[in-house]
């Protein structure tokens, strides 16, 4: 039962990453793509947490912590670059 739940969760996450990658490929302007980058980063945090549960090693969650604290800085850099304020 727990395995099925993990599979379903991973399927949903993979689908949402696919949607954000679609926006990344198609997005006509650069800000669209920056937002898609941010979304993909935040979704991958949840991938890592689900994988940590399914592999039974809770220490993998540290990787997700690093993502959570650092992924927003990339978006800030891109935003400041587009704003010509870097």
């Amino acid at each position, binding site marked *: 039962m727990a395995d099925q739940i993990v599979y379903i969760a*991973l399927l949903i996450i*993979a689908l949402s*990453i*696919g949607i954000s*990658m679609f926006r*990344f*490929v198609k997005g006509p302007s*650069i800000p669209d*793509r*920056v937002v898609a*980058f941010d979304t*993909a*980063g935040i979704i*991958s945090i949840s*991938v*890592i947490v689900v*994988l940590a549960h*399914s*592999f039974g*090693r809770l*220490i*993998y969650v*540290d*990787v997700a912590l*690093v*993502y959570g604290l*650092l*992924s927003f*800085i*990339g978006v800030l*850099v*891109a935003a400041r*670059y*587009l704003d010509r304020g*870097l």
Partner: protein
Amino acid sequence: MEIFLIIFAVLTVASALIAVATTKKAVSILAAGVMGLFASIVFIFLAAPDVAMTEAAIGSGLTTFIFFFALNRVKSDRAQGGADD
């Protein structure tokens, strides 16, 4: 579990292809960052959390930042409001 590894491997290769094929430099750099992100998930599948963490902090984080810094320095000397690529 292997099906999900295949999904993320395909996403990694796809974002690398975007990085090579796109015409805008900023998009190319962003796609390289996304590729680092998915590569670190592949590292988690390969039971290497240390490498995944390094890839998250350095490969997907700091590398993207210094690329943008360098791109900004290259562009700030160009005529203001020049070709935006």
